[in-house]
């Protein structure tokens, strides 16, 4: 290991900015957040970086390390031995300053998701096998790295059309809860925009909690929407009842 790490940290605010180079003495087992703290404590006390627990429990320190969405507290400096490390804020969200972005949109979306509607009073009787299915989603630490990497949100201004992977998990958590009685399928099909996801699994790849977002949440939710809105039996019934060209008409009109 070299004696010193070189980092290029994006410094700036919504009016613009640039990468600034810093040198940090190397220490065994150091993570990127340790290096940023060293810079903050010694070279740039106003360096803005969000963090809370430094133990990968809180999900505050999401940023992009050499272009990859990462938790700064969990990304080891020695993974980049010999390289210059570039640290930038998450690109999907508006910048506030340096590595801190405005993630408030996520909290707006969170309000749109109906909570658990229990079908009976607590204590619930629930087997572990039923709990297992949803507990995976409960591991989410809301670091929003999946939102950051999702190209619907990142490149296509999809924030009006799609709630993003984080909230697909949140909806799945309630939808698959054995004691839930609410219906979130219309929400999924419309406002939440589950169909916007084209299953490239980038979100799953960046999830620091290893939640199988696409396979275990998004795909099953897509199936629920398909069953409700695109069930061939229902389409057949519609055709038999005389509304033969309903679907085609709709398309030509639009």
């Amino acid at each position: 290991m070299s004696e010193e790490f070189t980092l290029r940290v994006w410094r700036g605010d919504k009016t613009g900015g640039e990468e600034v180079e810093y040198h940090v003495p190397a220490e065994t087992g150091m993570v990127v957040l340790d290096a940023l703290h060293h810079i903050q404590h010694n070279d740039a006390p106003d360096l803005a970086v969000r963090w809370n627990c430094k133990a990968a429990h809180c999900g505050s320190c999401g940023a992009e390390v050499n272009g990859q969405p990462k938790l700064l507290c969990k990304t080891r400096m020695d993974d980049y031995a010999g390289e210059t490390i570039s640290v930038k804020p998450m690109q999907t969200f508006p910048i506030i300053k340096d590595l801190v972005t405005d993630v408030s949109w996520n909290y707006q979306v969170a309000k749109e998701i109906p909570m658990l509607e229990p079908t009976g009073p607590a204590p619930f009787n629930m087997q572990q096998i039923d709990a297992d299915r949803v507990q995976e989603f409960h591991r989410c630490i809301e670091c929003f790295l999946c939102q950051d990497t999702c190209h619907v949100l990142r490149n296509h201004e999809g924030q009006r059309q799609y709630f993003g992977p984080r909230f697909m998990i949140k909806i799945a958590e309630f939808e698959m809860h054995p004691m839930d009685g609410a219906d979130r399928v219309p929400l999924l099909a419309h406002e939440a925009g589950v169909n916007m996801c084209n299953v490239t699994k980038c979100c799953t790849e960046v999830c620091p909690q290893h939640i199988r977002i696409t396979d275990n949440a998004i795909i099953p939710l897509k199936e629920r929407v398909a069953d409700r809105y695109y069930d061939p039996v229902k389409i057949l019934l519609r055709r038999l009842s005389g509304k033969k060209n309903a679907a085609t008409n709709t398309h030509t009109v639009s």
Partner: protein
Amino acid sequence: MAQESYETLDYDIIVIGAGGSGLRAAVEASQVPGLKVAVITKSLLGKAHTVMAEGGVAASFGNLDAPDGWQTHFYDTMRSGHFINNYRMAEIFAKEAPERVLELETWGAVFDRTKEGRIMQRPFGAHTFRRLCHIGDHTGLELIRTMQYKALHSGIDVFQEVTMTKLLVKDGRVAGAFGYFREDGRFVLFRARAIVLATGGWGKIFKVTSNSWESTGDGAALAFRAGADMMDMEMVQFHPTGMVWPPGVRGILVTEGVRGEGGLLRNSEGERFMKTYDPERMELSSRDVVARSIFKEVQAGRGSPHGGAWLDISHKGPEYVKAKLPGMYEQFLTLADLDITKEPFEVAPTCHYTMGGLRVDPETCATNIPGLFAAGEVACGLHGANRLGGNSLSDLLVFGRRAGLGAREYVSGAPDFAPADQAELEAEMDRVLEPFRRENGVNPYHVHEKLQEIMTNHAGIMRSGPVLEEGLNQLLELKEEARNMGINGSRIYNPGWHAVFDVENMLLLCEGIIRSALERKESRGAHWRTDYPDELPEWQTINFVESYDGEAIRIRTEAVNEMPEHLAKLFTYGKAPGLVQQSGGKES
């Protein structure tokens, strides 16, 4: 200097702090239609220190051990607190905890299950029965996320990333709080008819700590300056098992759940040393005892290579460990290149919790300032001289709710908003902006580092009179130096600026800790003095209460409330009440 302005926002009740207790308080306060409630947090929503709680939430369901009940939970809590707890708080707590946990279940929390489909409960240090409801080793995450979504759906306004610098008191009542938005540094006045403080503890006063950056005691310091009484400040908990190696992770929590699930502690000679210190409870002794035992082993030269003890869970097999302790497995693998399913790992004590805090009324969580309430770690009384694992999360729920109720009832009879005192606010804005104007000011991060060093060397796990005195002198010197803290840059999201106020708050509270520690001339719970190594009965009836007049901390003694007979009786059987029942004894 240009005229500074501020925004004014009016709420019936503001809750400062958005951890478990703050959110629970806000949810309770919002149950009255028409009442305007806001939660203010210095972080993002859902990131508060509660998220780091791992092992579980203690509630005496008796799902696995039928004889458990509130009496035994009460008994365990009082005994581990070495009887300087407020008995009434412990009683309310033990009785209400199960109901609060079930509430979480209806709001979406999914706990691990027993074979019968009920909430699973794991054993934990000094709990007589298996009592901790949990979801793997991320119970705190489950609690805060559940409460966060409940709060978002309860019509509460949430203000994120706000630094509060002053509590406003008018005509002897609380009138609001003043501070600034971190995003752009603009000032804000929250006028309020009642305030609930739920700002957590101050574990960041030590270098080796399991606490997140947030734990700087802001709410406690703000209230202390405003005239609120603090109690049991000498009582700081060191969790026995923090990570040790590599250096950057030192202090990060290793859940007590590891020992709860069967983890064994050994010294460098391979000996299960807990048999020397607590042969009956061994690894599952109370935290103060286990932490001290590890400390003593290291002092005796039987420590692990980096100054700790070995903890081993590998005998439980990879599948079990990964299922019950997934966070621990991941944490060691990523941060320490170590597979805990295969080999033992080093652990050492780490600062974890502050039992001391604002003195509150057990029923309503009211402080001595009318309109000011406190719940959770910032409050004091439930845990006495040592907190039991798992009792913190249920504390947040039980007293968060009660503080919300207390505030709600208070505002129904409280006067309307007090007009702002313009001169006071201008002076405050001036004070808050002062660090920008100091040329060659002292770096606040460096003051923080020095503070941590003083506390570690003088007021840590092992204390004595002369060493505490020396620590106090150094601290007072540092306080002088800190008057000159300065920063550069703009008001936009400037962590150096925020750190100035964190450090000021910690300096005040540390002085409170050392002064109180000097007064308690005995060893009790977490407070271990080598010059007074024994627990002495005459000190069991006393709490130290501190007040601050802006100049000096005054300290007085208050008598510990005496338990009524029906509760006192629970301690006369020679064993836990639940065990008496089990062996056919009589129980009132």
